[in-house]
């Protein structure tokens, strides 16, 4: 829409202004890491952060979310509508790409009102990453290192200023009345271009093949022995899916309160990596082996989501790799599948060695 510039010194005023009408959340340092949390003052936020433990999807799809409340007197249950206007400040582009996928998932065929209600009330202010956040991230390989749309505002760190790409009216409204905002000049645009040109070589390409090959690689790797090898290592702890920005599987459960006369139905994040995830009433488990569950996870990320929604199910944030206690990573997994497929000699020797 338009391109603006704000001096970094206005950030405190800007946060104060936003907080007059809505909740503001952003990356905050905590115990040596960063987490998205409520921001009350500019001193709490750190926009130059590496990555967060849990992705900001939790504001659209909370870890636990009430769907209904009810009384046990035969009356009809009530839908919980507790979405509040929220600004998510400082999303990295990988996490923004992940929300593009979730937008499609929750709007397809049946509209998921809990997600959509939060989505409509959320303003997304993303920020350009200028340096790799950690060794596990591989956003450049996944094509998520930058972003062209899907944000309300997008910030680029220009030293003393932020370049602000205004993506929507909702984003423009966030800047309304803020003193210090000015239209970008040609010179500002050159500054952004220089920053972008300089940032690109800092990020390594970590996949040994072009990511557009990934869905077909996953198709032909369905019967790979690698899944058994991963299954042997996997602890089925579900950390990988808990920290994933594109995972959205959930369970639904009821809880009756202490009065035994009322309660709620809530949904809670679930994981295809957990033992009972695909178990039906008579006890049959359709994905009993960890190998099958790892395969399912990687096929979802590398192929199924692309088939269903046109977007890859992995954005290369690296959180699952960082969280995994036995070092199962998407980069190693996909590169190994590629090697076994395209360099069978080395693949065979590896399998013998293993």
């Amino acid at each position, binding site marked *: 829409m338009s391109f603006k510039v704000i001096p970094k010194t206005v950030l405190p005023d800007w946060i104060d202004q936003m907080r007059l009408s809505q909740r503001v959340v952003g990356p905050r340092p905590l115990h040596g890491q960063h987490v998205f949390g409520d921001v009350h003052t500019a001193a709490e936020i750190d926009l130059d952060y590496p990555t967060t433990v849990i992705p900001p999807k939790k504001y659209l799809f909370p870890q636990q979310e009430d*769907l*209904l409340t*009810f009384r*046990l007197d*035969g009356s*009809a*249950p009530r*839908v919980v*509508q507790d979405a509040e206007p929220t600004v998510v400040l400082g999303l990295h582009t990988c996490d923004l790409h992940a929300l593009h996928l979730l937008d499609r*998932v*929750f709007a*397809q*065929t*049946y*509209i*998921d*009102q*809990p997600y959509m209600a939060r989505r409509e009330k959320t303003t997304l202010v993303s920020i350009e990453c200028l340096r790799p956040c950690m060794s596990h991230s591989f956003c450049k390989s996944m094509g998520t290192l930058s972003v062209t749309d899907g944000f309300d505002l997008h910030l680029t760190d220009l030293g003393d200023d932020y370049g602000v790409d205004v993506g929507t009216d909702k984003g423009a409204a966030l800047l309304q009345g803020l003193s210090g905002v000015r239209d970008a000049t040609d010179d500002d645009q050159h500054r952004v271009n220089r920053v972008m040109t300089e940032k690109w070589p800092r990020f390594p390409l970590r996949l040994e093949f072009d990511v557009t090959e990934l869905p077909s690689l996953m198709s032909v790797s*369905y*019967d790979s022995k690698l899944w058994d090898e991963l299954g042997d290592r996997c602890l089925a702890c579900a950390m990988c899916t808990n920290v994933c920005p594109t995972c*959205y*599987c*959930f*369970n*639904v*459960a*009821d809880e*009756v309160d202490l009065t035994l006369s009322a*309660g709620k*139905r809530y*949904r809670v994040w*679930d994981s*295809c990596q957990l033992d009972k*995830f*695909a*178990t*039906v*009433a*008579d006890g*049959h488990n*359709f*994905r009993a082996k960890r190998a*099958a569950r790892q395969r*399912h996870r990687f*096929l*979802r990320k590398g*192929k*199924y989501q692309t*088939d*269903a929604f046109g977007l890859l199910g992995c954005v290369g944030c690296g959180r699952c790799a960082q969280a995994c206690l036995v070092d199962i990573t998407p980069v190693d997994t996909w590169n190994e599948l590629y090697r076994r497929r395209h360099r069978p000699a080395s693949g065979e020797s590896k399998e013998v060695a293993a």
Partner: protein
Amino acid sequence: MTQALRETLAEPSIYLPTTATIADIRAVGKREKVFTIELPRGVSLGNQPGQFVEVSILGVGEAPISISSSPSRSNGSFELCVRKAGDLTGVMHTLKVGDTLGIRGPFGRGFPIERFRGKDMLFAPGGLGLAPLRSLINQVLDERGNFGRVIIAYGARDPGELLFKDELERWAQRSDVELHLTVDRGDESWTGPVGVITTLFPKIEVHARNTVAVTVGPPVMYRFVLMELLGKGISEGSIWLSLERRMKCGVGKCGHCQINHLYTCQSGPSFSYAEIKHLGEAL
């Protein structure tokens, strides 16, 4: 889109069940009861044979249950045949006529009956598989003239596990229905054949090119029944099944029912064998 589904979409949440009333309850097996359910204001469920609903009891939870009645006999109500198996079904079995429960749906893809018309129908339910298949069988019987032969090959664990005995009786007496029953283990009262369901197939002659086979049963049954059906020369596209999965949300979101890339609650639970034979997780 059915009227019930339109109403669901007009609701503020796809997860909000409609409060429905139990109009009748009858036992049809040792562990199975049929619940006749009425939606408010006489609204018809508008289901296709093979679809399911999410049944909920507030404070207990929600579970997918296949619809056992055919649209041709809806009459302002529908039937669920429920085996007492888990938390929700256990509580369901304690409910009485006049009690309420929550309904969402109907969901999923039913059997494409329009493609079956003019064909000989071979139904092969195993155990509780008769519950969903009964909806299709009765639909076919209610428009009997549109179909060729109607063959039912039904197997259960023991005579006490044969469901819908009154209906089996009526089907047995019809000259236009060929009913074959078997039980894995007989008892003193049982005079029919003893053996698993596949032992019925050698007795059944079919005109393979004009036959549609529909089989619903426990996961372990499919591989063996499919071998029999394919062995008779029935084409892969003319063999239909209903796959059981944990369809927790019913609306293609929660992920529990996935068979490879497919959400069973959306693409199924009814599938032709041709549609799923290449999927490693299907059978």
